[in-house]
């Protein structure tokens, strides 16, 4: 006979001690900052006037929608997050928040962000935000991430959509410009994440996530990083020859692209372990700066054109 009453243990309710900071961590604030910034740039460069209240509403909804995606992603990946040093400190592996709590939090935020954007701004933007959350949670997290080395290539579409959502919020329609912004982030994602995966490949292998360095090896990953970076530089410069942006953006994109390419070549050439780690870390860090600077240049060119029409 057991002296422990297992029924009593199972029935004892778990009282949460999760703090607000734990819930904020579920929103992936650093990812959210990049999402908000790219969406802000799309709002700035979109044609026509957007009322500031509607612009703030759109950004808030996009930010909350991105946070909802992050929370749902963490809810579904608690098991593998616990196995990786980079993610072991997240609220679910630490036991601060349970999976059902994170799911409820993410679903609530997703529901209200889509509903608010749809009602207050327009339903094209609201539908696109819903699709973005669905793509990140269902297509990327639930379907692709644990099944294919192309997970972040296809899944990258989710991270590329926020400027498209913002453009739709500002104009009520879609056109070529937001598609170009989408393509820039889409082709930026593989070099960025594969650089991270190269110096965290032990983590991913332990968790059984088939990232490219784990499945195809570091050399194949280095080649893919280089190839995607070449395409990225071409795509990022495209708005200039296509006539959507002028020389300021074109030249800035080529200079930044040359930097990105130099770091990617460095990653391709340096194969020794210590050198390779340094090179991939540098590429990872520069790729974040690259995207911020590229999008900032887009916004600055439009602002400059608006305030100095006579000298432009």
């Amino acid at each position: 006979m057991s002296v422990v009453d297992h029924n009593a243990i199972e029935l004892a309710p778990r009282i949460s001690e999760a703090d607000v900071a734990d819930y904020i961590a579920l929103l992936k604030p650093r990812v959210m900052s990049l999402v908000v910034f790219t969406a802000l740039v799309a709002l700035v460069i979109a044609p026509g006037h957007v009322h500031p209240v509607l612009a703030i509403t759109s950004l808030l909804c996009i930010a909350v929608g991105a946070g909802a995606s992050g929370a749902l992603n963490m809810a579904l990946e608690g098991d593998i997050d616990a196995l990786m040093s980079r993610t072991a400190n997240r609220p679910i592996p630490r036991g601060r928040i349970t999976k059902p709590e994170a799911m409820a939090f993410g679903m609530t935020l997703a529901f209200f962000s889509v509903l608010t954007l749809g009602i207050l701004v327009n339903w094209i933007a609201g539908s696109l935000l819903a699709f973005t959350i669905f793509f990140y949670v269902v297509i990327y997290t639930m379907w692709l991430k644990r099944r294919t080395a192309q997970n972040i290539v296809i899944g990258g579409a989710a991270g590329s959509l926020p400027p498209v959502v913002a453009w739709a919020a500002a104009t009520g329609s879609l056109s070529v410009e937001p598609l170009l912004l989408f393509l820039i982030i889409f082709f930026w994602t593989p070099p960025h994440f594969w650089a991270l995966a190269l110096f965290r490949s032990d983590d991913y292998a332990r968790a059984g996530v088939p990232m490219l360095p784990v499945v195809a090896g570091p050399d194949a990953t280095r080649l893919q990083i280089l190839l995607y970076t070449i395409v990225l530089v071409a795509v990022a410069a495209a708005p200039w020859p296509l006539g959507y942006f002028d020389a300021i953006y074109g030249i800035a994109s080529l200079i930044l692209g040359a930097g990105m390419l130099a770091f990617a070549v460095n990653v391709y050439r340096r194969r020794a372990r210590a050198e390779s780690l340094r090179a991939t870390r540098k590429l990872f860090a520069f790729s974040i700066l690259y995207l911020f600077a590229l999008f900032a240049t887009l916004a600055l060119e439009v602002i400059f054109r608006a305030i100095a029409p006579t000298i432009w």
Partner: protein
Amino acid sequence: MADNRPEPDGIVLTEAQKRSRRRRSIAIALALGVLVVLFFAVTLVKGPAVLNRPL
């Protein structure tokens, strides 16, 4: 004087649990407040156009 109050039934929260619950409740209240303000402001902008009326 003896405390004649009955022992509380059910679950008794610890101080840490009470504090974190209070902070979560305040955060939810603030979020709802922001939502109300947002709907109010956008109604003024898009609906009766109060903010855009000529002086």
